[in-house]
């Protein structure tokens, strides 16, 4: 399969790989996917309690190149955004940016789920009202 240059770039040089302290109240963790399905993404955000701005984001992904690229891109995009702004990122934005072919759309869906799951976890920890449809391990 031929990958777009952007997927190759994220795969070769993934942004924001790593782990944040999941016990911190400022950190939200989203773990989505399943090993038997061939992709698992863990996306973490560190939110400024005053401004609600996502100051840091980290990911680790088990999955194909497109899954790695989708989650790498997701961390790049959420950084510097407020929690509310980050929730506006959709999988179609990711598909467009990475020029994902139809068979790889599920990778972008998983990345969107990971963002929502991380924010959901952070909200739960901080007593912020949960919006309908946002779960910590969203099915896709």
């Amino acid at each position, binding site marked *: 399969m031929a990958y777009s240059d952007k997927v190759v770039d994220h795969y070769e040089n993934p942004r924001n790989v790593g782990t944040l302290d999941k016990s911190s109240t400022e950190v939200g963790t989203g773990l989505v996917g399943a090993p038997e*399905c061939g992709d698992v993404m863990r996306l973490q955000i560190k939110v400024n309690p005053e401004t609600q701005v996502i100051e840091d984001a980290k990911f680790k992904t088990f999955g194909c190149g497109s899954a790695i690229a989708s989650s790498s891109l997701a961390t790049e995009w959420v950084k510097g955004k407020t929690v509310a702004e980050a929730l506006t990122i959709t999988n179609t934005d990711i598909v467009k940016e990475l020029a994902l072919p139809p068979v790889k759309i599920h990778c972008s869906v998983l990345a969107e789920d990971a963002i929502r799951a991380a924010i959901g976890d952070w909200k739960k920890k901080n007593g912020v009202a949960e919006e309908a449809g946002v779960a910590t391990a969203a099915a896709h």
Partner: protein
Amino acid sequence: MSIENGNGANVAGIPSTGVVITNSNKPLPDGVHLPLYMDNHATTPLDPRVLEAMMPYFTGKFGNAASRNHAFGWEAEKAVEEARTQIAKLIGATSKEIIFTSGATESNNLAIKGIAEMYRERGNHIITQVTEHKAVLDTCKKLEKQGYRVTYLPVQADGLIDLEDLKRAIVTEGPEKTILVSIMYANNEIGVIQPIREIGKLCHEKGVLFHTDAVQAVGKIPVDVQADNIDVLSLSAHKIYGPKGVGALYVRRRNPRVQITEQINGGGHERGMRSGTLNVPGIVGLGKACEIAGEEMAAEAKREQELRDYLKNKLETALDYTQVNGNMDHHLPGNLNMSFVYVEGESLLMGINDIAVSSGSACTSATLEPSYVLKALGLGDEIAHSSIRFGLGRFNTKAEVDYVADKIIDVVVKLRELSPLYEMVKEGIDLSKIEWAAH
């Protein structure tokens, strides 16, 4: 775009985490050329000696082997008969028992459909097994639609069938009598060699015909249709350094004499079993490929097995959480199927994309399903997603094996830095206890 040319330097303005998947500006070792081919179960390069044997039959010796009344036809026929003898010799058959086809897919279709049709009066039951090639499985599925009953035997965790399962599945009386058992000689993904001799013996004791898809075995390990009790056998040229588009079917003529209903009509070539003008250059190539394979088999099998074991040991020494798939005691010399657990196969292939190997990962298949062969072993889909098939062949060298092993190790280590599963396992978390979201 070529990944291996990436030097890992940061794109201006993009913060780096320091994780760089590929970084191979090192000069290539002597004797290693890229792209590097190590996928010899898929196909093999043509041996130059085979090409040399074929060349005259494209140009000057272009006759139709069925032309009975001139020198061009006689010359072509002579070449075809010589090839028939070369093939027969490799598998312990006689030349009259060799039928030429367009390849092993046709051979498998002809064998299974041809026997099912010919012996329909005797019974309607066929036995095969779940890790067969699709050329056998899809053919059996089609026969099921036509009213035949097919038993798909399971395999054990090591990929071998249980002879007791086979014994129980054979029906010897009544309208659902078993007419055919079709079990592959060696598997194309996991390289395991089935207990063919015992299967053949059992079939003959029960009066059932035995067909084997021997595409991966012929020319690689000793195959003897007499000792192995094989009645019908499929083989292909392009898996043994011959040309694509030509194969053969061995059809036993004595004890018992096997009859096959032809599936292609038009002229009655090949003793009526397969019409169509013979592919003379291809057939000459298949014959030559068989001759070379026979002469060099013992030494080549030893060499490939040593390289394979070297590759396996090197990978197992450098990496944790590896798993070899398939029984290694009954195994093709050039095959290694290994899972690099917690790394997804397609992402691994992406990091080594100057090396041609295969993966059982869903992402590499057209159906987005992980390998049905690995799934049949009952090891869990994640093992299939993480699997790589190495297919060593005649032209692979130790320098190449070293290059491949080093590259795999490098990329697996880097992808595991990216793998949440690897991190969790290292922290002592039991992944099976996590409630994963179904998707």
